[in-house]
């Protein structure tokens, strides 16, 4: 892999659902260890962008380069790519037919073809990291939302991906559960895991991110360091969006 290449690079990405254009000419890069937070109003296309990066949506035009290889190309092994770029969803999406432990093992045994013992050891390591080790025998329906999301993070981590995508991981949670999930994510950020996080938690975004992207109406309106975006936003739309948050 090239020394100066980005881990992920999005080039001129556009996405339309029928005639409805949701993303227009998106460009941005992610390097190893970056924590990129994507913020913006509801409907601005944040989720769609993240889903395009993971190929859950097929971009209409543009390129997504992973180590300089365009993964939107024909014949690219998309599942293999996804095993390197994990995703955590707003609605957790834990497998309902499996226990907490099995949720964290199945990807390792079936996709990465690891042995059960190794997969279990690995799964336990990450479940401990998110504080869910005592719940290994529980089914998803038996644990709380915050706990589910921590398991979902452990499941993604157990694949030992290079990049982790988060789509509003705390939006479906009660306020008291938001903290436990954000705490886990802060630890990951400190450990230097490369992450792209779509969030409405501005204080969190300001603390953990190395780079902030502000989206409005399907375009990247402004991007920069957290100090730049939260401290002295240049664009009017950014200022307006952030002022709403500060006023609550």
């Amino acid at each position: 892999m090239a020394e100066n290449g980005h881990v992920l690079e999005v080039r001129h990405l556009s996405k339309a659902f029928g005639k409805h254009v949701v993303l227009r000419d998106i460009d941005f890069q992610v390097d190893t260890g970056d924590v990129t937070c994507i913020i913006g109003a509801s409907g601005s296309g944040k989720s769609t962008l993240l889903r395009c990066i993971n190929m859950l949506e097929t971009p209409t035009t543009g390129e997504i380069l992973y180590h300089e290889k365009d993964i939107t190309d024909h014949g690219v092994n998309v599942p293999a790519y996804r095993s390197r770029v994990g995703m955590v969803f707003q609605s957790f999406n834990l497998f309902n037919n499996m226990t907490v432990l099995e949720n964290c093992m199945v990807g390792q045994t079936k996709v990465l073809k690891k042995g059960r013992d190794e997969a279990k050891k690995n799964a336990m390591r990450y479940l401990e990291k998110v504080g869910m080790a005592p719940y290994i025998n529980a089914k998803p329906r038996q644990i709380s939302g915050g706990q589910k999301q921590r398991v979902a993070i452990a499941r993604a981590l157990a694949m030992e991906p290079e990049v982790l995508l988060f789509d509003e991981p705390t939006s479906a949670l009660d306020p008291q559960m938001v903290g436990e999930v954000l705490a886990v994510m802060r630890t990951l950020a400190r450990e230097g895991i490369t992450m792209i996080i779509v969030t409405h938690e501005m204080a969190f975004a300001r603390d953990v991110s190395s780079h902030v992207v502000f989206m409005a109406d399907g375009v990247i309106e402004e991007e920069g360091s957290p100090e730049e975006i939260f401290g002295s936003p240049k664009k009017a739309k950014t200022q307006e969006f952030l002022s709403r948050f500060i006023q609550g």
Partner: protein
Amino acid sequence: MPTDFLGRVMAVFERYGMSMLQGAGVSLQIALVGTLIGCIIGFAVGIVQTIPTQQKDNPVKKGGLWLVKLILNAYVEFFRGTPMMAQAMFIYYGLFPLMGFNPSMRQSAYFILSINTGAYMAETVRGGILSIDSGQTEGAKAIGMTHVQLMLYVILPQALRNIMPQIGNNLIINIKDSCVLSVIGVAELLYKTKAAAGALYMNFETYTITMIVYFVMTFTCSRILRWMENRMDGSDNYDLATTDTLAHTSGMYKYPDEKKEGK
């Protein structure tokens, strides 16, 4: 002949009970085989019908899949849309001889019931697969599973659980409807009943026995299936794994309070 009703029933049972129970065995066997193979057919068809196509797939693959789905659709519609009794006559007396097949009556019965159940189950399985929340699929894709893997480990187990009541329904219908196959001479319970009732001119008594035997068979099957459903659900509780049993004890978080709750 005894003069009271119960006595006459017993008398019929003494003479024809064995033969009727043999017929019941045949009914049950046909129903079980038909339901099992029907489920396999149903799963195969339902799975194929839910294979997603993407725009970027090559046209040969898309065209082939379209054709296969069309044929499977025709199969489902045809066998759901015609009476099994007519199908039995058509296949056993018409199609099989025409094609040079010479299967036994029992084999024909298995075939007809399987293919019928398959047509119904195909729709049930398709519905079962579509009813699973798309989040499950996306969660599986996000850890790199292929379509085959996510179907096998995530979607189908949940779909199977959800359609268990329908499978039970089909089994019960098959136990009863296997009697239709008496038209091609399969010696199942109703066939034996007719023989007994005709020989003794005692319809009421004979059919009393038949009704009881059918009900015992269907009720037993429905209980067994309910028990299987409960087993698939697993226990309502789970044990918290205490840190002692774990290989690593240095968790980032400790939840002593939750651990004490023990449930």
